[in-house]
Every structure is written in C-alpha cells, then in structure tokens.
C-alpha cells in the first residue's frame, strides 16, 4: 500500500459498501492528520484575531498567520512576504489581478492573450476586464493533442499584448504549458504574465523567480490544505502600484472622515478579518508536502498518470483527451457512448470517486467537440491499485451499459 495513505483519515472508509478509491484530487485534495490537527489546535488553543490585540493569544495567532505567509514565500521562492497575499482561493486571486491591475492598466487597442483550455476562473475575469477597458481578447492555438507550440505562440504575442493569462497545468488535458518561455515572450513585448497555478503548485516545484512570472494564483485546498484559503503572488513593484479592491478593517493605515490611506504590502489587499485558520492550515500543508519533497510528489504523480494512460488505453472504446506523454496526474476520458454522469454513477457504486461534467471549461469542451467528459485525478496518496480498481470499475460500466443497450 501507498505509504502516505495512512496520513489521510478520510481514505480509510467504505463508500457504498466498497473501499473508497478517491480519484478527484484535481477538484479538491484530501487532508492529512497534520493539517486537520493544525486547524483544530488553532481553534482549541489560540483562536484570536490577528494584528490588533496585545494579548497573548492574539500574538500567537498573528505569529501563526504571518508564519504561514513566510512558508508560502519559501515554498514558491518569492523574494519577499510582501508579495504573498492571502485570498479565498485561485478564483479570488485571479479576479484581484483582473480588477485591480487589468482595469487600470489596459485600454482600447491592448490585447489580452489566453489559451482556449482555460478554466472559467481564468477566462471570465479577463472577458470582463476586456469589456470594461475596450481591450481585445486573443487566443493561442492549441495543437490537436492539447499542447502549445511555442513558435506559434510567438506569433500571437505582439507589442499590443499587455497581458497573458494561462494555466500552468490544464485541469482537463493535464498539459504542462511552457510558462517560462511564455513569460520571456511577453516580457520582450512589455506585457505581464498571469499564471493559474491551481493544478501545478500542488504537484510540482514552482519557483516564481525561475519562471519570472508577474502573478501566480493557487488554492490551498488542492494541495492538502483547507478550503477557503488561496494565494496571489505578485511582483512587489506591480503590487505596490495597484489599488486594493476591498476596503474596511485590517487594510487601512489612517482613516479620516473623507480620506483614508492603506497599509503597506501585503496587508492593503487583505481587508477584513483574514482567513486565519485557513492560512495556518495551509502552512501545515506546506510543511507536510515539503517533508515528502515536491520532486518526489511530482515523480509519483507523473508515474501514476503514465501508468493510468497505459492501462486505460487497453480499455476498449475508451478515448483519452490531452497529450499521452509528459502530463501531470490526471486523465480525462470518455468511454463508448456512455455519458460521463452515468460512468461516474456506476463507478460511485463501486466506491470510486471521479469527476464528470465540463470541468468548468466549457470552451475547451467545445474545442474537444464533446459535451462532457469523465476525469480521474491522482495525488500522493493514490497508487497503482487505485488505477486497477478504476479499470475494473470501467469494465462494470461496459457490462452494465452493454447489457442495458443490448
């Protein structure tokens, strides 16, 4: 058995009379004892508001919250904790950039470049920013296997390109996009690059200075942390010039009846009582992932994905979407003509949890010329046995729908 499984209490249970096989970590990952206990400890022993009280618990809570920020900084190798803003998740982080940065810096004639495979949360904020500023949306062209040809991408990025927003890893195709090369291209033309790291940061070492990205957004809950906490990384020089989008307590410096001023970075973007327990839980999640090593996790996920592709290809009538090689830990597929909902229901009866639907990527579904797909996604606690269970489950799907159709 996989040696990490025992750290995740939820995995040790029966679902519909079968041992749970959790293959939906791209939607949200499970949480190890270490994270659950860190959140519990905060609530049981030092729950307090941060940055204000002079009392002991308040100091401890502040240390926990700001300590988590330092852990995040180190984890993605940011230059300063001023560049680490806690948000509710990836969506909120991307919206912050789209509202605060894009709406101020973009104008008619400017171009925003996206990939057609973006998750809705890295698509709609830019549609709205384009509408508000008069900027134009442009799209990279993807290769038939869902990868990006950097030479073709070069032609799309022009001197008018003020912003490129792209996922580091596609949540449907599993493609790893060449973000470092894209960052170079955008910078040569004077634009900025915004990276949606929701599917990459949990699964591989992401170094913001090595990539040289301007913004990076990711969520805690996909990297064994709690829900409701996410991160926006931004280069200090950019964040410094940006205005807050939420106003209230916690983010102010001086408040007068008619005018107010803001705190320094990163707090000017964190109006209201922050997500204290979530940040502390995220800090514990980073400790947990680092104790294993991101290289080890990346290798594990890639091997498992390769094994899954190999095994699933043997299933008759199954079609895999995205590149067959060099992909991260997820496989999106359809089987025969069975609708993915029906596939997921039959698998659920076997205790196997997969995602079915459009995966918040409707334009990509149209690009693939499908209405919906099923997706199995893996993390450090999955192993080859889980894949074998999936394959067995898919045989059940074939038997079941073969029978009722037959």
């Amino acid at each position: 058995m996989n040696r990490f499984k025992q750290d995740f209490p939820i995995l040790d249970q029966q679902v519909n009379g079968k041992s749970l096989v959790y293959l939906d970590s791209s939607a949200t990952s499970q949480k190890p004892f270490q994270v659950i206990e860190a959140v519990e400890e905060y609530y049981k022993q030092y729950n307090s508001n941060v940055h204000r009280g002079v009392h002991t618990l308040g100091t401890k809570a502040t240390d926990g919250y700001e300590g988590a920020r330092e852990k995040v900084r180190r984890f993605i190798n940011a230059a300063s904790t001023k560049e680490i803003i806690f948000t509710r998740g990836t969506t909120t982080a991307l919206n912050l950039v789209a509202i605060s940065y894009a709406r101020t810096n973009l104008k008619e004639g400017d171009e925003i470049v996206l990939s057609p495979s973006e998750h809705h949360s890295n698509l709609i904020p830019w549609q709205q920013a384009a509408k508000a500023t008069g900027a134009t949306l442009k799209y990279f062209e993807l290769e038939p296997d869902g990868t990006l040809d950097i030479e073709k991408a070069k032609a799309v990025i022009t001197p008018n390109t003020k912003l490129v927003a792209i996922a580091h890893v596609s949540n449907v195709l599993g493609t790893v996009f060449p973000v470092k090369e894209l960052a170079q291209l955008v910078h040569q033309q004077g634009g900025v690059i915004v990276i949606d790291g929701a599917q990459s940061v949990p699964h591989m070492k992401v170094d913001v200075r090595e990539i040289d990205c301007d913004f990076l957004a990711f969520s805690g809950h996909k990297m064994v942390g709690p829900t409701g906490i996410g991160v926006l990384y931004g280069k200090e020089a950019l964040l410094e010039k940006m205005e807050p989008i939420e106003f209230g307590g916690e983010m102010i410096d001086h408040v007068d009846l008619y005018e107010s001023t803001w705190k320094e970075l990163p707090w000017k973007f964190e109006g209201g009582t922050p997500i204290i327990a979530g940040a502390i839980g995220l800090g514990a999640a980073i400790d947990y992932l680092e104790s294993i090593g991101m290289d080890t996790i990346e290798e594990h996920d890639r091997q498992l994905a390769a094994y899954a592709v190999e095994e699933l290809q043997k299933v008759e009538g199954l079609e895999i979407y995205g590149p067959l090689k060099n992909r991260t830990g997820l496989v999106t597929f359809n089987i025969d003509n069975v609708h993915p909902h029906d596939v997921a229901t039959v698998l659920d009866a076997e205790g196997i949890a997969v995602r079915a639907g459009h995966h918040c990527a409707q334009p990509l579904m149209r690009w693939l010329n499908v209405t919906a797909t099923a997706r199995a996604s893996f993390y450090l606690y999955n192993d080859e046995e889980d894949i074998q269970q999936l394959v067995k489950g898919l045989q059940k799907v074939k038997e079941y729908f073969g029978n009722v159709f037959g």
Partner: protein
Amino acid sequence: MSLDDLYRRVIMDHYQKPRNRGRLEDGDVSVDLNNPTCGDKVSLQMRIKDGKIEEARFMGEGCSISLASASMMTEAVKGQTVEDALRYVQLFSDMMQGEDIDTDEFPLEDIEALQGVAKFPARIKCATLAWKALEKGVKEPRN
C-alpha cells in the same frame, strides 16, 4: 443503493429510443435550459392551443437520466391541459424530493421508473431539467 434502482429497463428504453426527439417546426413555445453544473442541455418546443399542449418535442444533450426524463415528459404532457401539466411538474418535483406520492396520477406509467433517482441526490437535477423546461414553457406568455 443498487444501480438497478436508477437504471430501470424502461429508462434505458427511453434513453435508447427517445420519444418526441427533434425540432417542432410549428411550435409556439420554445425553451432552452442548461444545467450549468454539469453541462446538460434541453431544448423544448411545444404547440399550445386553448390551454392545451397539442404537441411537444425536445432536443438535448445529456446523460441517460436527463434524456429519458425528457422523453417521458413530452410523451406524458401531449394532449394535456396547461393546468394539468403544472400539476405533473409539482408531482414530479415531490417525487424527486423522495415524498410518498401516488404515481398513478401521472398520465404515463413509465414515469414511475424515475422514482429511484430520488435515492441518488447527485442525479436529481438530471431528471428534473426537462420538467423545469416544461414549467417555464407553459408559464411564459405566448404571442
């Protein structure tokens, strides 16, 4: 929980051979509904005269449950009054909530087969999509 509760033979029959599938050229009511969480779509057209649904046809993309439900719904409401159709919408909704209803009240016996969907909370929305389209369609003002 048994899969056979969900996938009854009669449901599969409607899924494989949907009744009233296609576009109604002389319809006077047209409703497009999506289930945004999963991407299911139904497009329902009806011809309604003097408070009576003369004809109902649908097009759609979706799973076995959503398409079978649309097939049954159109079959059931053809020839029924708008008033009765709304009563069936309510009855169907109650059935999906797991309430103990008299399925004999439906004008089509097959609908009873969808009762098992109530045990699969994740699939209830699949079954109700076509009925929501029906409700919207008969309530909308017509020209």
